[in-house]
C-alpha cells in the first residue's frame, strides 16, 4: 500500500503541493486528473524519490520514501515509472533497453534478464522488434518499450506520467490498450492523464487535483459523471 500523508512540495518559492493525502491499495487503479501545473506529475516524482519534499510523508509498503536511512534504489525497484517523453535509451536496442536494469540492478544473469525482457516485450506487443533501435520506432512503440522496461523490474506499483500526451493521436490507442491490459493483470497503478474517458473506463478511483490539493476523490461514477465540487465540474466541462 502507498500512503501519502499531508504532502507539501515547493520549487523554491513556488508551492506546488499543499497538503496532499491519499492511499493507494494493492490492485487499485487510480487516475489523477487536473489542469497543467496543478501538481499531478510532481506527485509521482515525490513518490519515487526523484524530487525531495518539504513536508508530510510518503510511505510505500511500510518504508518512508524520504527518510534518511532508506535505500532509495531498492525502493525504486518496487515502483515502476513511465514518463511522458518515453526516454528510451537511444544507444541500446529494444531488447538491451529492457534487459539492462534487471541485469545490473537486480543482478540477474544475462540469459535470465533477456528472458524476462523478451516476455515483457511480447506482452506489450513488441516481440518482433527486439534488435531494433528506438530511433527507428514510432512514438507509440517507444512508449510501449518504456512500459516493458519498467515492467521487467517486476514492480509492485506502476506510476504513469501523462504517457500519451506526447503521442500523435493515432498512436494513443495502442498505449492505452497496453495500460488496460496491465490493469486487467491486476497491477496497482497511479495514472496521471488528460484522457478523461480512459480514466473513467479503467480506474477504480479518480482524483481531481486543483492547485496543489486533491479537490475531489472517489469512483469515476462520482468524480467524472456526477462531480460534487464546482471546480471539478468547471474543469470537466472545459475538457469535454
Amino acid at each position, binding site marked *: 500500500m502507498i500512503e501519502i500523508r499531508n504532502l507539501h512540495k515547493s520549487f523554491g518559492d513556488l508551492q506546488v503541493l499543499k497538503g496532499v493525502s491519499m492511499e493507494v491499495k494493492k490492485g487499485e487503479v487510480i487516475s489523477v486528473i487536473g489542469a497543467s501545473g496543478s501538481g499531478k506529475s510532481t506527485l509521482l516524482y515525490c513518490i519515487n524519490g526523484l524530487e525531495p519534499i518539504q513536508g508530510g510523508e510518503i510511505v510505500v509498503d511500510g518504508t518512508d520514501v524520504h527518510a534518511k536511512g532508506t535505500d532509495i534504489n531498492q525502493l*525504486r*525497484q518496487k515502483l515502476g*515509472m513511465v*514518463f511522458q517523453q518515453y526516454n528510451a535509451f537511444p*544507444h541500446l536496442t529494444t531488447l538491451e533497453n529492457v534487459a539492462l536494469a534487471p541485469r*545490473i*540492478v537486480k543482478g540477474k544473469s544475462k540469459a535470465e534478464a533477456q528472458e524476462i525482457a523478451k516476455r515483457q516485450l511480447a506482452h506489450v506487443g513488441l516481440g518482433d522488434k527486439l534488435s531494433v533501435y528506438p530511433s527507428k520506432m514510432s512514438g507509440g512503440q517507444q512508449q510501449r518499450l*518504456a512500459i516493458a522496461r*519498467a515492467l521487467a523490474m517486476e514492480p509492485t506499483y506502476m506510476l504513469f506520467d501523462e504517457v500519451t500526451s506526447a503521442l500523435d493521436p493515432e498512436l494513443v490507442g495502442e498505449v492505452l490498450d497496453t495500460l488496460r491490459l496491465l490493469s486487467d493483470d491486476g497491477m496497482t497503478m497511479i495514472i496521471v492523464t488528460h484522457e478523461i474517458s480512459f480514466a473513467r473506463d479503467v480506474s477504480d478511483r479518480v482524483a481531481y487535483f486543483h492547485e496543489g490539493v486533491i479537490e475531489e476523490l472517489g469512483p469515476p461514477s462520482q468524480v467524472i459523471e456526477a462531480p460534487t465540487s464546482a471546480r471539478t465540474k468547471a474543469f470537466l466541462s472545459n475538457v469535454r
Partner: protein
Amino acid sequence: MRSLPDLIDAGFKTLEVAVEAMILGVIIGLCLALIRLSGRFGITWIATIWVELARNTPALLQLFFFGFGLGAFGINLSPYWIVLCALTFNNAGYLAENFRGGFRAVPDTQMKAARSLGMTATQAYLRIVIPQVLRIVYHPMTNQMVWSVLMSSLGMLVGFHELSGETQFLASKTFRIFEYFAVTAIIYYVIVKLILAASRLISWRLFRY
C-alpha cells in the same frame, strides 16, 4: 630522398607525442569538465582558469611558457617534455569544453529514467549518460586529435626532432628548404587523412544507431 627514412622516423615521433598528449588531455579534460559541472565553488575556479587560458592564448605561447617560462623557475624540461606538456595543457582545455557541452546535451530525463529503474547514480552515468556523451563529443575529439598532430609541428621551435624539427634540421644542412618542407607537408596531409579515415571507421563500428 635518402633522408626519407629519417623523416618517417620523425613522423612516428610526431604521432607518439600527439597520441600521448591526446590521451592525457582526455583524462584531464574529463576531470576538468566534471569539476566544472559539479558546481562546487571551491574548486571550479581552478578548472575554469585552466580551460580559459588554454582556449584563449596561442598554442605557441603555451609552448614557450613550458619552455622559457618554467625556465625562470629553474625547471628545464627536455624538448620532448615541453611539447608534451604544452599539447596536453591545450588539449585538456579544449576537450573539457567539449565534454561539458556533451554532458549538458544529454537530456536529464535520461538520468531520471535510469534512476527510476533503480540504478545507482554510478550505474546510470556509466551505462546511460557517458555512452551518449561519447557519441556527441566524438567528432570534436577527432578534430582535437588532428589538431594535436598539427600543433606538434611547433616542436621544431624548441628543438624537438619530430617531423618538422627533423625537416628543419635536414633542410638547414642542405639549404633545400622548399623541397624538404614540401615533402613534409605531404606527409602531414597523409597522416591527417589516415587519422580521419580511422576515426570514421571506428565511429561506424561504435555508433550503429
